[in-house]
């Protein structure tokens, strides 16, 4: 494997990891506040569809992004109402939203565009374009560092950079602000937050809605950045993979970056080497493409260390004496 191939695989890793990273951080906010969110998938899928649909209709990707975020927020709100206000089961609420999103997006797509559950292909201003960072072309010829800068670092859509910036931002919010302290506390012991005179409900809603915004970004990136339009079930389980990455990352922002990059890398390798021979034995394409999912199962089965989830996760808060 030559250097350029490596750069290309890594470049592809970053692209493929971006939606996972955004979704993973979304899950991080929600679960750190004690609300398990298996509906990351639903929010991403809804955002992917509505961003692509609005971008296709208006021709403006920014309006598409807005629509994506709004749709994801609505899903987040439903999850909040069901699991925070009405103290329903968080897993069931999430699963229900997943079903709702997968059915609803295709149904509306057929009705609006009549293209068999897709949106029309997006191009031009209806899609996020790659940004060429300053001097990317001029340093491209410099050995080693040149391609790293011009190929790997430069040339992504704005959402990729947003996702990467979200990592230090999340870290700062979580560990260096009052809001972050309260957020972490409410996921560990809501009783402590309540008796300190802070509203558990409002904090949890805030966390769930932040997750909504981040999933909106993730979904919009899928349909208008990574791909050129919405296709049926295009999230392909990325919401679940993001959850696995979240566990792998032990609910920490920087670890989340590492974990999602690992999944992105496996995805990139699977895409690149569709037919690979190992010691003369051909490895089926399906196996390569299944790599991220296999890793997910391995992580969820608990083979990778012991991760301690937020202690009050998954439980609605009920006052007690």
């Amino acid at each position, binding site marked *: 494997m030559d250097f350029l191939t490596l750069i290309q695989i890594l470049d592809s890793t970053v692209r493929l990891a971006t939606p996972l990273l955004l979704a993973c951080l979304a899950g991080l906010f929600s679960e750190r506040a004690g609300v398990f969110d298996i509906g990351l998938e639903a929010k991403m899928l809804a955002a992917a569809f509505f961003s692509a649909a609005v971008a296709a209709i208006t021709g403006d990707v920014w309006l598409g992004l807005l629509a994506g975020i709004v749709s994801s927020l609505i899903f987040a709100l439903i999850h909040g109402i069901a699991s925070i206000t009405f103290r329903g089961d968080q897993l069931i609420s999430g699963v229900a939203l997943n079903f709702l999103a997968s059915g609803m997006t295709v149904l509306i797509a057929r009705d609006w565009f009549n293209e068999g559950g897709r949106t029309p292909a997006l191009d031009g201003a209806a899609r996020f374009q790659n940004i060429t960072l300053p001097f990317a072309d001029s340093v491209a010829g410099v050995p080693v560092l040149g391609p790293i800068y011009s190929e790997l670092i430069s040339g992504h859509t704005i959402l990729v950079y947003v996702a990467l910036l979200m990592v230090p931002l999340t870290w700062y919010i979580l*560990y*260096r*602000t*009052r*809001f*972050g*302290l*309260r957020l*972490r*506390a409410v996921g*560990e*012991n809501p*009783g*402590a*937050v*309540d*008796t*300190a*005179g*802070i509203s558990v409900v409002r904090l949890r809603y805030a966390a769930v809605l932040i997750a909504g915004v981040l999933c909106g970004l993730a979904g919009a990136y899928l349909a208008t950045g990574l791909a050129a339009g919405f296709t049926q079930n295009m999230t392909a389980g990325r919401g679940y993979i993001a959850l696995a990455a979240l566990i792998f990352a032990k609910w920490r922002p920087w670890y989340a970056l590492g974990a999602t990059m690992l999944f992105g890398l496996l995805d990139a390798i699977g895409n690149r080497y569709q037919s690979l021979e190992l010691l003369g034995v051909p490895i089926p394409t399906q196996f390569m493409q299944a790599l991220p999912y296999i890793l997910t199962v391995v992580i969820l089965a608990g083979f990778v260390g012991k991760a301690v989830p937020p*202690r009050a996760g998954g439980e609605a808060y009920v*006052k007690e*004496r």
Partner: protein
Amino acid sequence: MSADAGTPAIELKGISKAFGPVQANKDISIRVMPGTIHGIIGENGAGKSTLMSILYGFYKADAGEILIGGRPTPIPDSQAAIAAGIGMVFQHFKLVENFSVLENVVLGAESGARLTPSLSKARKLLTDLAKEYELNVDPDALIQDLGVGMQQRVEILKALYRQADILILDEPTGVLTPAEADHLFRILEGLKAQGKTIILITHKLREIMEITDTVSVMRRGEMTATVKTAETSPEELAELMVGRKVLLRVDKTPAQPGKTVLEVENLRVTDDKGVERLKSVSLSVRAGEILGIAGVAGNGQSELLEVLGGVRPATGTVRMNGTPLDLEGARSDARTRREQGIAHVPEDRHREGLILDFHAWENVGFGYHHDPKYNRGWLMDNDALRRDTEAKIARFDVRPANCWLTAKNFSGGNQQKIVIARELERNPDLLLVGQPTRGVDIGAIEFIHQQIVALRDAGKAVLLVSVELDEIMSLSDRIAVMFDGKIMGERLPSETNERELGLLMAGITDTDRAHSAEEVEANLAKSVGRRVQ
């Protein structure tokens, strides 16, 4: 200070609160004078905690008025209570386990959106408070690494950091060793000297007599009396709590120990995390004797009971009436133990003693299913079981005497009587009994203690585990103290005292020397139970 002159720090007028059909508080009025320690005593379910939760804005009263410093002050939520200068230390601490002391103190009372300035400001204040009130805690320690005594201090610091003038403590000594409790009382005296008002909720008469200025008694949701502590006696308070005369001391004759029933040698238990919970424990219990195991919760007493009761494997030797017991193999189960003459009243009746959603007769029937008396061929003879259960329930004075009621609908004391009835009616050679009176009202405590003593007098062996030192001292014929999975020593109740036992419970064996509270605290933190939760 006179109890009826001046403006009270807190005045409650006609507070009522109902949970569905249960009237938790009925028209309660109380005046708490500033700069005093006011005790509120009552049995479980008397409504003490409900009343204080109303004062802290946790519940809303159905009727009544709250006056703080003479001014009517509505308290719709905890924030309003904090603003009114009220701080509360709950029985189950409200701390974030994986946060530092500093973060816990600051939570909800931060000085700005950014955390760093808040934390450094709090650090300074905390140092001052620690000096002023003997409340030394390392601000950077994580809560999960601190002992309960320390955690309680963090709760007090939290209240003081919010400038509370009124401090409510709900059963603060339930989890403390005597030395820790003494330290807490010194802190409370110090706070009182600074003009703070303290409300102490407890069910322990001794504490009320020791530290309070005034005491209010609650019974079944009503305030039955408010008296000056100096003008009352434990006997009078007990009568006010229960509504009839009660015997505070256990009436028993000296033991007549017979042959050795239970012999334990080098018993070791390692839990599933690989932590050694029992470290070579040896002891013996003879017929006609009660051996009390004292110790702070989590020092191996539970594991000891579980091993002997057949619900946890172990290594070592245990002989019952001379026959070695199987500790790891197929015959190490609870059913075999019962057949060998061991009855077991587990420590936690809700988790291990009862199935709360089952009827009383089903609960009393557990463990009797194999008895041919209750079987007809391969069917159970439930009628026979119910008939016998009714008789047992009557003998053990379970109220209401209705075997069709589900277990969760009985009071704590009556639930415990159901478990005790089931186990004692086996007529065992050895009774294992853990925390027999935890969460049990005084009336039932008296009855349960009498039953245990009666069993002893019938020539049976009893192994009693309790975290209540009073209970250990008054029931036991011999006391063994456990700390960190080991027996620290054995004493006779007549030749020891609370101070000595308290030191042994903290793992300090040179009990003749004086020890500081810090030393006790530091030593306690070394035990297995404190490190692994």
